[in-house]
């Protein structure tokens, strides 16, 4: 190994060639303040524009200060990370950024979670010595994301996520100098662009420039309206992250406390999206088996591989970018929408409430779910199946607002009949989870045999693209998995070129899957947090008494009482959907 020896803050350091000064310093425990720089280890996500100059250090023998994030180490380098000159420069840089930043921190959606605010605090900035023009950009509101670009510090993290990781290409730096900003083409609104609302820009934005549309007010109004029955569903990934908002270690499971908190917030029924995830497996798994059987029977028109369709950002992505492939994904709606559809028919009938008086709220790790529930096809006569989708962060905000002491809550169960779920439903929240859940059911239905093991470790992990072959009683089933839309694009291009040998592909838009969703507590560039959330979901799965979707007794009952069978006409009407070509709009 080619090692480089240097001195940082009078300490000898030996690191691999090609290491940046920032990482070399970190290896000996010296934290150099940085702002625009961000790295998610093991996920191949790095933002290194060298733009903000907060991380400048003094290098002996160099006239200018060097940005630590994009300066590689060199033999014999002598570095002072906190010389008077470096500190002064750092403070000046932050003051200059603040001189063109709104000072509405008290009411900013990002207050307390803002990297710029933390940096100003860290550097002890009490006065801004510069006065000048202020940027004024128009605010842009979409169904899911708000852009308030007066707060943009041009770190370009969002642009990196949108282009390099997601390959969506909705955002780019435009204009130059003082007028430079990150924007869709022709400064159009986000909802006219190719944006998928994956929310990864929101997840990495260091300030309040990009935030989710806040629906907490609307939910509070519904909860305080006596004429409404308000029910709630919680997505799998929420329970593995919500605790972080209340000081729990990442990876702490708070399923029971979450149910208790929702009940104290006044929801009439506390249900689980995991129930609908089990339902999704029955529908999507049956669809996969139907397609497989037809394919094996020699049907040339059958579309394989089948792609999952749980992720609304992924759906919008292929509608814009691969409309020629829109027949390939499963027609199954996402668990959120299946839940809404069943809640406003089956459940509303059960409790004798008119669908207009039933308000369905979902708690999602996602900002795209806000967009999904606003899609017209998911409503009946203007009444949406899911009325409001809140992010994990918004739920935490509601819990705080209601003065609920989250940590001291008892563990409570979900209500019935839409709160019961299996381990298969829980792992929907992580990359690889949906397809593992599908395999557990598809295998048993297809082969008629009991599975002897449930943990398909070959489908698990954090690599962006994975594949595995599962033996279905002598029939090899080839499975592909992608998380991050840039990785998904690679699989789609293979399909277009006829190079794909997969039977089924799982796609999730966010790195790590829903555990890394745009609506989750901010990770501030720490990939360990995502991994711990992932492990938590697998822990919840292995602790469940039932771990296969088709064994969920309430799902069986739902089919018996209401739907008939998977892919029945009624199921088709309520649980499946169609996709649209958005490439021309």
């Amino acid at each position: 190994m080619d090692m480089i020896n240097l001195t940082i803050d009078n300490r000898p350091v030996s690191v691999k060639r090609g290491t940046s000064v920032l990482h070399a310093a970190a290896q000996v425990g010296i934290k150099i303040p940085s702002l625009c720089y961000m790295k998610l280890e093991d996920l191949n996500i790095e933002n290194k524009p060298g733009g903000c100059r907060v991380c400048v250090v003094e290098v002996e023998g160099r006239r200018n200060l060097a940005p630590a994030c994009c300066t590689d180490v060199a033999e014999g380098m002598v570095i002072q990370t906190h010389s008077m000159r470096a500190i002064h420069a750092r403070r000046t840089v932050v003051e200059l950024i603040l001189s063109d930043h709104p000072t509405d921190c008290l009411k900013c959606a990002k207050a307390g979670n803002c990297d710029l605010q933390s940096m100003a605090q860290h550097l002890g900035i009490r006065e801004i010595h510069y006065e000048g023009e202020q940027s004024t950009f128009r605010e842009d509101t979409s169904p899911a994301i708000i852009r308030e670009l007066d707060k943009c510090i041009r770190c370009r993290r969002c642009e990196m996520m949108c282009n390099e990781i997601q390959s969506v290409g909705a955002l780019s730096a435009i204009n130059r100098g003082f007028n430079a900003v990150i924007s869709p083409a022709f400064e159009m609104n986000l909802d006219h662009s190719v944006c998928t609302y994956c929310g990864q820009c929101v997840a990495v934005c260091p300030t309040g420039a990009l935030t989710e549309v806040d629906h907490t007010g609307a939910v509070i109004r519904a909860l305080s309206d006596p004429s409404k029955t308000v029910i709630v569903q919680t997505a799998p990934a929420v329970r593995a992250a919500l605790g972080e908002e209340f000081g729990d270690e990442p990876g702490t499971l708070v399923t029971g406390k979450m149910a208790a908190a929702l009940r104290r917030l006044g929801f009439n029924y506390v249900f689980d999206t995991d129930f609908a995830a089990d339902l999704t497996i029955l529908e999507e798994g049956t669809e996969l088996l139907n397609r497989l059987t037809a394919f094996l029977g020699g049907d040339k028109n059958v579309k394989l591989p089948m792609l999952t369709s749980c992720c609304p950002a992924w759906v919008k992505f292929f509608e814009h970018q691969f409309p020629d492939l829109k027949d390939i994904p499963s027609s199954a709606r996402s668990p959120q929408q299946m839940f809404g559809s069943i809640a406003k028919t089956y459940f509303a009938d059960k409790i004798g409430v008119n669908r207009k008086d039933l308000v369905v709220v979902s708690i999602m790790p996602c900002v795209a779910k806000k967009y999904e529930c606003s899609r017209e096809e998911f409503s009946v006569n203007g009444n949406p199946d899911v009325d409001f989708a809140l992010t994990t962060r918004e739920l935490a905000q509601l819990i705080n607002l209601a003065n609920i002491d989250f940590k001291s809550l008892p563990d409570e169960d979900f209500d019935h009949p839409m709160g019961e779920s299996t381990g298969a439903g829980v792992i929907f929240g992580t990359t690889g989870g949906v397809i593992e859940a599908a395999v557990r059911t598809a295998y048993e239905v297809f082969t008629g045999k009991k599975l002897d093991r449930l943990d398909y470790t070959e489908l698990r992990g954090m690599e962006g693209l994975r594949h595995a072959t599962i033996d279905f009683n002598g029939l090899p089933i080839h499975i592909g998995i992608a998380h991050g839309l840039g990785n998904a694009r690679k699989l789609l291009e293979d399909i277009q070129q006829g190079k794909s040998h997969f039977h089924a592909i799982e796609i999730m838009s966010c790195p790590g899957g829903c555990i890394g969703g745009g609506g989750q507590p901010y990770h501030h560039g720490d990939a360990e947090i995502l991994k711990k959330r992932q492990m938590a979901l697998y822990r919840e799965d292995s602790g469940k008494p039932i771990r296969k979707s088709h064994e969920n007794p309430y799902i069986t009952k739902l089919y018996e009482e209401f739907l008939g069978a998977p892919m029945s006409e009624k199921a088709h009407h309520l649980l499946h959907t169609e996709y649209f070509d958005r490439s021309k709009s």
Partner: protein
Amino acid sequence: MPKIKLSQRTIEIVKEICLSFENNEGELINVLHEAQHKLGYLPAEVQELIAHELNMSIAKVYGVVTFYSFFNMLPQGEFPISVCMGTACYVRGAEQILHEIKRQLNIEVGQSTPDGKFSLNCLRCVGACGLAPVVMVGEKVYGRVAPQQIRKIIAEYQEGCVRPEKHEM
């Protein structure tokens, strides 16, 4: 921005330009230069077409078009006037020159005269600082310009000048 529909001929021209650079994303700036040279300006539809041909995002193309002051998204006058606002020109009175042109043509920076004859833009340094302040009309450079000369320069183009070849969109 008003939506315009590109003629078949324009679409062919843009595609030819892209193809001459092998539809290579890395040649974007050259493609934009060539397209503006042939078409006079780069409306949104042309940028969308270029993005499609080079297989890159429209936002990125727009980002480059808005970064360089050379590129125009609005139709230019038959004779585009550019006033250099670089440091050397600025300190030698570019602002008064600009003011005089605005007064005489009765337009602001970025606009065209109603007859479509002149348009006015600022640019940064044409590399002729020794001649500061510099004004360009089309490709022709005027050096050491004084405000009193403006009327005469504009008059040169009022009648009988050779019209530059531009493709109509």
